[in-house]
């Protein structure tokens, strides 16, 4: 379990990552005649920039069960074990990107709204011991939407200073759950009521805020590319995100679960997520009177 100490360590590391930049800025002000000043004025100007813009994109989630739970305890068959559907259900994210760039490194704060989806399914079968043809099969497809307000801190490194610039990035994020819902689609076949009767289209949708904890902490790493168009910078990145803790509310696993009657209880699980994000960024420092920020 993640302790406060380890949380502090993670974000202290992020702070340390910021520190050289802060120190460099400070040094530059204290020592204006340093080596940096020997470069041409435009190039020196381009070593530092603030960017502000918008991000939006899509994501895919995999829920990794650590310890499995069920409201059913089978006495004979019918385990109903969940089969997770990894990276199959599309979520979305949108937010703001505030980035400070200096000498190839960017330090970015990207508050965003993020919907992550994960799903699993399970099946149950009952058979009449006196008549094996008399059966009931039920299949549950269980889809979860988790909406987070997320505050990521990301460090990027640009490999070159061209209009087309690949980069790598890593960082950490803190999110707080603002809404969660759970949808269950029930399908099955009843062969015990006189004929084979397939039923589908039965759906339950419940609020699931109480089934998950508020906090979401994790780290991320990814690659991307910047493309400069005039003063604008367009970016596309792909990031893999590792959740650092169990997101299920263990206290409410059973008691607040309106679906315990169908045997459902959330496993202890970590979330892993693959995000695809587009960004449009605007520079906040301009090099010339006609508002050109780049050559």
């Amino acid at each position, binding site marked *: 379990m993640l302790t406060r100490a380890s949380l502090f360590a993670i974000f202290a590391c992020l702070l340390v990552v910021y520190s050289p930049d802060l120190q460099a800025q400070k040094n530059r002000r204290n020592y204006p005649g340093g080596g940096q000043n020997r470069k041409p004025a435009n190039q020196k100007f381009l070593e530092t920039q603030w960017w502000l813009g918008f991000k939006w994109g899509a994501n895919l989630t995999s829920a990794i069960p650590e310890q499995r739970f069920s409201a059913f305890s089978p006495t004979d068959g019918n385990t109903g074990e969940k089969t997770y559907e990894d990276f199959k259900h599309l979520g979305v994210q949108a937010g703001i990107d505030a980035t400070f760039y200096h000498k190839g490194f960017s330090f970015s704060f990207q508050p965003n709204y993020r919907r992550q989806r994960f799903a699993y399914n399970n099946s149950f079968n009952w058979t009449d011991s006196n008549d094996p043809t008399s059966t009931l099969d039920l299949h549950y497809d269980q889809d979860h939407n988790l909406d987070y307000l997320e505050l990521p801190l990301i460090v990027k490194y640009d490999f070159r200073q061209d209009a087309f610039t690949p980069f790598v990035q890593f960082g950490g994020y*803190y999110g707080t759950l603002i809404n969660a819902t759970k949808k269950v689609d029930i399908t099955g076949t009843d062969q015990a009521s006189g004929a084979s009767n397939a039923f589908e289209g039965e759906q339950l949708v419940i609020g699931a805020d109480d089934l998950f904890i508020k906090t979401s902490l994790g780290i991320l790493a990814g690659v991307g590319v910047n493309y400069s168009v005039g003063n604008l910078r367009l970016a596309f990145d792909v990031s893999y995100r590792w959740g650092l803790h169990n997101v299920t509310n263990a206290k409410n696993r059973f008691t607040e679960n309106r679906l315990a009657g169908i045997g459902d209880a959330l496993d202890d699980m970590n979330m892993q997520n693959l995000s695809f994000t587009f960004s449009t960024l605007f520079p906040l420092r301009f090099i010339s009177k006609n508002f050109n920020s780049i050559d």
Partner: protein
Amino acid sequence: MRKHLLHILIIIPLVIFSSCDLEDNDVIPTNRFTKIYDNNRFDSSITPIDVAQTADGGYIIVNSRRLENTDFLGINVMKVDELGNFVSQTDLADNFVQPIADLMLIGGNFYFLCMDATSLVVHLVAIDDSGAVTDPAAVSGGLFYPLHATIDGTNILLQSYNNDNKETDISIIGTDGSISASQSFTIGSGQGVEEPIIEHFTRTGKSLPFMVGRTTGGTYFFNGFYNFTLSMVFTDLSSGDPNGVLQGQQDDGGLSSALHLSGNTFAVSRFNFGDNYIVPQASIDMGGTTSSVDLSGNQLPELPPDTKVDLLLTEVNSQQVLIYGSNTNSKQILLLAYDASAGDLLGTQRLGFSNPYEISNMTPTADGGLVVVGTTFVAGRFARVVLFKLDESDLVALTSQ
């Protein structure tokens, strides 16, 4: 940059302090759970009778099970672990039927009573902590049709029905099956009088709230048929004439649960022609003849007619609390907590969603929590045992609303 640094320094403590739910999420899984004991048999139907906690933290659940060729119910004994996970079960031979509450812990073993389907003689069954069941042993003295039993020191206080004599028998029996005291009370003469009792056994009529107990002052009481009416009868077992009677309305009214508090004060629930009332502080004259309709109480329209009510006294947060457990019209289990000394409602909680749920019994647990056993209908049709485990914080929340 100072402003930037300031933002970071604000975010870090925000993250740390708002992450408290990470630490709170480290829950001991034995404290709270809901478990439904399902099997894949279409024709299986199991209904719990009572539950008790074992020394290893697990639970013994005594269940009735449907038999194919009789209206009587067979017996299933289930052992589950401290997480509520199924461990083992035993189906007793089909000739042993009608298991009754209470499941009693005496001398390290658990005991319950049932009867032989052919002779109708009461039998005693012992279960050890592992769930191993001994062969049922006949109780001596010609006792038939067990109705309810409860612990009485190291003995068992049994209410049973003798259909030959049309009498309710109250007996004190030992764990060896011997009878140390017994008294019989007439239900009244005439063939129709015993009909509700037989229908109770064969599940063709109402399930009636038979119960037996003893006050702290030593007076025995039972809820059963006396003089044509479902009544609470008070006796010292010295005579077939009761010391006092709280009369019901034949089988349409009477007490549905009762627990002695002190002196003449009882906590009870009562039913009357379909209505249900909770009376957490009822003064009952144990030496005279009174009527249950005079007890008034809090009417609970959300309870269905003639529903089961279970009642226990426990301590929550250093406070003596009465917990009533019953069923609602919306097919949930309802817990109501009352201050045992003042009779004030402290809070309510509902258990179970989506499927129908019905309470069978409940008992406090060693960790200060509560376990509630009942029936749910999986997929809307298969009767299965459900076990709710609440922890102490749940009970504190229940009594702090």
